[in-house]
């Protein structure tokens, strides 16, 4: 079979540039360190296995502190800011998508989505807010001499429960990605097939 040079079929579209992929990768790595060290501090079996509590605490603290850095650095990129804009704005079609998700309606026609679907938008906003809440409570636990000790206890309470929630939501996020190789390819290479884009993100103007 010979490829025709005069009419190359447009089979791939660009979904993410270098900045978005770099931001996602760095954030994922830092989040991974946070989760792994948290498990070693929290789950008795892992704590017994690893010990070195002070070192693990230090790594956890610094990884948490660095967690917002990739996104902040990414703000320098116009393309990244544009994607944040897409994530922020909810149109009428997002309401349709959410309603279909609630009713487990998997038909394409009832799941209209732009570059990001409504579920991805909610996830992005929630995980950003939750990470900042973890950062705030984490700082209260870290610099104990700055606040009364009751604050530290309260911050620990929120930090513990929110950590559990984030763990579950994050597992969902990773599970969704595992179920969609083309979406993973988009974040790995920046390109997705046009067919996938039209099917999954019908309103996205690529």
């Amino acid at each position, binding site marked *: 079979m010979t490829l025709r040079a005069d009419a190359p079929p447009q089979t791939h579209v660009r979904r993410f540039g270098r900045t978005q992929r770099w931001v996602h990768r760095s954030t994922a790595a830092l989040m991974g360190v946070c989760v792994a060290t948290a498990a070693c501090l929290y789950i008795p079996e892992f704590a017994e296995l690893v010990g070195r509590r002070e070192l693990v605490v230090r790594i956890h603290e610094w990884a948490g502190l660095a967690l917002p850095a990739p996104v902040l650095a990414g703000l320098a990129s116009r393309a990244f800011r544009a994607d944040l*804009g897409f994530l*922020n704005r909810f149109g009428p079609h997002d309401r349709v998508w959410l309603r279909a998700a609630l009713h487990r309606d998997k038909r394409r026609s009832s799941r209209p989505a732009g570059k990001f679907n409504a579920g991805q938008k909610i996830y992005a*906003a929630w995980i950003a807010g939750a990470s*900042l809440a973890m950062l705030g409570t984490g700082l209260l636990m870290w610099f104990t001499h700055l606040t009364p000790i009751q*604050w530290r206890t*309260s911050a620990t309470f929120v930090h513990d*429960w929110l950590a559990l929630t984030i763990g579950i939501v994050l597992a969902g996020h990773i599970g969704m990605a595992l179920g969609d190789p083309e979406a993973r390819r988009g974040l790995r290479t920046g390109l997705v097939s046009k067919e996938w884009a039209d099917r999954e993100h019908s309103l996205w103007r690529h």
Partner: protein
Amino acid sequence: MRSGYGNLTGTREPWSAGVRGCSNEYVNPEQPEPDGPRPQAQDRHPEAAGRPIGRRVLLGTLGLGALGVVTAPTLQRGLEAFLGSAADKDPTGLTGLLPNGGGFRYYSVASSVPHKNAANYRLRIDGLVDRPATYTLNDLRAMPQTRMVKDVQCVTGWRVPDTPFEGVRLSQLLDAAGVRAEGTAIRFSCFDGTYTESLTLDQARRADVLVALRMQDKDIGHSHGGPVRLYVAPMYFYKSAKWLSGITVTKDVQPGYWEDRGYDVDAWVGRSNGRDDDPTS
């Protein structure tokens, strides 16, 4: 940019029109376009419009977190009561993994802790004493045992109610060794090679301070600091050093591991570390 918005700035993302609120936001579509601009620049594409709900979700989550910190004391009491009773009836042990789900947590400051048993465990008593001594596990078991049932309170907040501890009163070991007049404090060391603790002599002689061999009516397992740990009933649990291997009478109090890192040396439950828990003893 203002005048030619519709056809010259095709690279601008369409959503930004809705964000800015420029005065000419809705002007361009009404003007006739001279020569075929991108048609979709004019119809209100679903992605171009929309409300900033993402930002609200983000701030809302953050706000809930802050609210959680403010209301934590109330929430925590309620949850602990609920999870405490649930943990009693939970055969799977999963509630133990929930925050404050009742039960003990394993904290070790060392990278690995050797396992000791009746064959190789030794407790050394030395320092400012007349008769330094080394006890085996069986030596300790042969001595009079004291059993106490009290709450355990950790300085990080968790509390385990009505926990039985059993062992030899520390005061008895001190009397047997004969503390010299210049000795006023005790330094405890542990076979994890890292952890240390301290008590004043008066604190150490209290009747509710044990060299504990049993906890929850079982021999103390490795993960709980076995075979022998300290049990200082009236103080936060970091004073109850795990894997106890050395008792040294000293001239002054030498702050222990966590006390070098900011915790109070006199760690009375409810009267130290800025906390107001109910006393445990």
